[in-house]
């Protein structure tokens, strides 16, 4: 026991309080850092020295700096994020599709009705050219509206396809960052606390990755994370990461996702995903949008076929009087596929509105008489020509509206549910890991007083020395 040991204790106490204040300021400064887990110093008494049969304390030391985190909650958060990001894609893109299919903007059914009404009108004055002009104009509105819906949907599909590539690039960036952080965590593992910030950062990356694809991960004894896709393709192992890549699929014209092993051999893993934004994007691109395009094709195809079938049996105003056969002119351009993309009026009709037929008969001079063709075309709107002859055109378009409405609504509801549960989980995580300024301020004061008390020890020791020196 000596005065100098008081100085020594004071020195240790000072540095412990300083470390305490530094950790506290680190916490305070990261109060708004996403994913940050608060840290705290762990103080421990120094082993006592035995002096004259007495065990005397030697003061304090900082044993380690711990990170407040609950691995179980973080794992649940990652799973939830996987779901949340997938639902975000659905909600976002169903809303976009809804915008494209919304009757308020595209007026599809409106134009369809106008078109058939124009034929009704023509039936009241079947030789009129003015009414033929109206048929032509309404036909053009109809085809344009269908073409626009098609290109709207197609553009969305292309946008999603580009998004696939972008997300894959992001995943590669994340996995390589995780690999780098793994290395630093391994190097830091020998010391007591340096790895804390690396772990926080790495876990934030894992959370981001979980939002994109479904993954499995676990940590080894040094805290390094190994990450696999849920179907078992390695993405990160220790300091090593594997890249994903996209290649063109020749049949669809869209990207496929491939996993590359070290020899550079690619494996197609497009169908391997079960969750996350990438899965959402793929499902939107390859499933939902294609279904709506197929619906539009069915609609356009049925209108083209039925109208042409009737129209071809008609006699037009340009009918050659020497023939008694119908003119066999198509109203819509004949197509064999891609109906909604290419739907248009036939060249004959576009060239001359007199090529529009309203009559199914001719008189002795070869002049068309009557309005039967116009009537028959007008009545197509009430015929069940869609869904294998079970729906009328209007039933079909309203069922499309109903379907996108339901899908969009369900997506919004599910997203809201995911957000709410995510919020609950985040609250729980914050409960453990978040920084509370009140708490940190209290700690700061606590360490500040401890520091001041330790400096007082110096003064006391100093006084003791002074008194001794004066006694000499």
């Amino acid at each position: 026991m000596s005065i100098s040991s008081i100085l020594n204790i004071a020195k240790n106490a000072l540095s412990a309080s300083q470390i305490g204040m530094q950790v506290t300021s680190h916490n305070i400064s990261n109060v708004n850092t996403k994913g940050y887990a608060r840290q705290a110093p762990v103080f421990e008494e120094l082993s006592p020295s035995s002096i004259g049969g007495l065990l005397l304390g030697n003061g304090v030391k900082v044993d380690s700096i711990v990170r407040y985190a609950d691995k179980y909650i973080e794992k649940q958060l990652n799973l939830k994020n996987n779901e949340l990001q997938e639902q975000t894609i659905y909600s976002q893109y169903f809303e976009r599709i809804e915008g494209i299919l919304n009757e308020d903007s595209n007026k599809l059914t409106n134009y369809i009705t106008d078109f058939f009404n124009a034929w009704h009108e023509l039936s009241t004055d079947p030789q009129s050219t003015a009414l033929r002009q109206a048929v032509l104009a309404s036909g053009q509105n109809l085809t344009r509206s269908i073409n626009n819906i098609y290109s709207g949907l197609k553009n969305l599909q292309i946008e999603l396809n580009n998004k696939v590539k972008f997300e894959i690039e992001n995943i590669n960036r994340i996995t390589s960052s995780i690999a780098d952080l793994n290395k630093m965590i391994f190097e830091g593992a020998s010391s007591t606390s340096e790895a804390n910030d690396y772990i926080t950062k790495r876990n934030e990356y894992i959370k981001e990755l979980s939002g994109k694809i479904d993954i499995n991960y676990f940590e080894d004894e040094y805290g390094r994370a190994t990450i696999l896709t849920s179907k078992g393709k390695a993405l990160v192992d220790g300091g090593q990461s594997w890249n994903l890549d996209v290649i063109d699929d020749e049949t669809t014209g869209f990207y496929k996702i491939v996993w590359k092993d070290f020899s550079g051999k690619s494996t197609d893993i497009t169908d391997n995903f079960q969750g996350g934004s990438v899965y959402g994007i793929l499902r939107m691109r390859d499933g939902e949008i294609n279904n709506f395009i197929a619906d539009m094709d069915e609609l356009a195809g049925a209108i083209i076929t039925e109208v042409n079938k009737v129209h071809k049996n008609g006699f037009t105003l340009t009918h050659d009087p020497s023939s008694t056969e119908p003119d066999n002119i198509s109203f819509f351009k004949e197509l064999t596929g891609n109906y909604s993309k290419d739907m248009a009026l036939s060249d004959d009709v576009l060239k001359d509105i007199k090529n529009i037929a309203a009559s199914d008969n001719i008189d002795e001079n070869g002049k068309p008489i009557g309005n039967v063709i116009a009537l028959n075309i007008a009545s197509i709107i009430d015929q069940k020509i869609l869904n294998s002859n079970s729906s009328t055109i209007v039933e079909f378009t309203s069922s499309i509206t109903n379907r996108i409405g339901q899908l969009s609504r369900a997506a919004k509801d599910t997203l809201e549910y995911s957000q709410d549960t995510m919020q609950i989980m985040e609250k729980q995580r914050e409960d453990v890991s978040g920084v509370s300024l009140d708490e940190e301020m209290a700690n700061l004061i606590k360490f500040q007083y401890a520091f001041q008390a330790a400096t007082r020890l110096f003064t006391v020791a100093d006084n003791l020395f002074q008194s001794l020196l004066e006694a000499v």
Partner: protein
Amino acid sequence: MRVTDSLKYELFTRNLSKIKGLVDTAQTRIASGKKVLSPSDDPVAASSGIGLEVEKKMNLQYERTLNKLKTLGSFYDTAITGIHELLTKAKEIAITQASSTMDAATRKSSAEQIKGIIEQLVTIGNTKLGNTYIFAGEKTDTVPFTLNNGYTVTYNGTEDVSSVFIDRATKEESGISGNRVFISDTNIFTVLKDLKDALEENNVEGIRSSLDGLNASLEKTETNLSYIGTYVSRIEDYISYKETRDLDIEEVISSMLDIDITQAVTEFNMLTNAYQAMLYSMAKIQDLNVLNYLK
């Protein structure tokens, strides 16, 4: 439970934007007067709305067609009344000229009157409504009656008339054909031509016998007149039925898709109150900070 600072702010912004979104929607609803702004607001209402809008539009189209038929009906009415007058006049001439007090000269001049009547009848037969010859049957753009030398008249139209839809799957004939009015059963023009010939030839017997034809013609014309009368009143009934139906549809659409303004405004007020309360409480919470007490 530890409540941390960043969570406090994050929850605040999240809830604020949620309420703001609701306020926004409520405002758009009031501005547009619509309850269903996009299909996802109410998919069933939105899709039935489409069906009803089509119903409304098609109904309007049928009304247009019916109004055309109504105009057409009044044209027929005028025309056939005209025919009746001319035939009555011809009958008077025939009765007068059949009398033994008349001589060849008066009969000759009466023949000129009958010629005039035939010409007038041809003019009536060639009546046009817009581009349509109303008595031509299906050959609406062909002149239906041509007056030949010797006052015979040829009919160029068809026996039948076209039909048009006046409702789903209900058709109505667009009027009456010239064949039915002038030619079939009793050919008015032949009767008048025979009368004219008899007058010119001073053939009293012929004049008398043409009276039978004139009576038959008048009878036929009266039948046609009453046919057109019922035709027009039938069309008018349809029109008023359609107009009531329009209102019904309008009402259904409105109740399904339009807002109840008082309800919408109340809802809007409730939301803005919540929004203000939210801002107020945040301002209060901000004061509760340990830093305010550390000097």
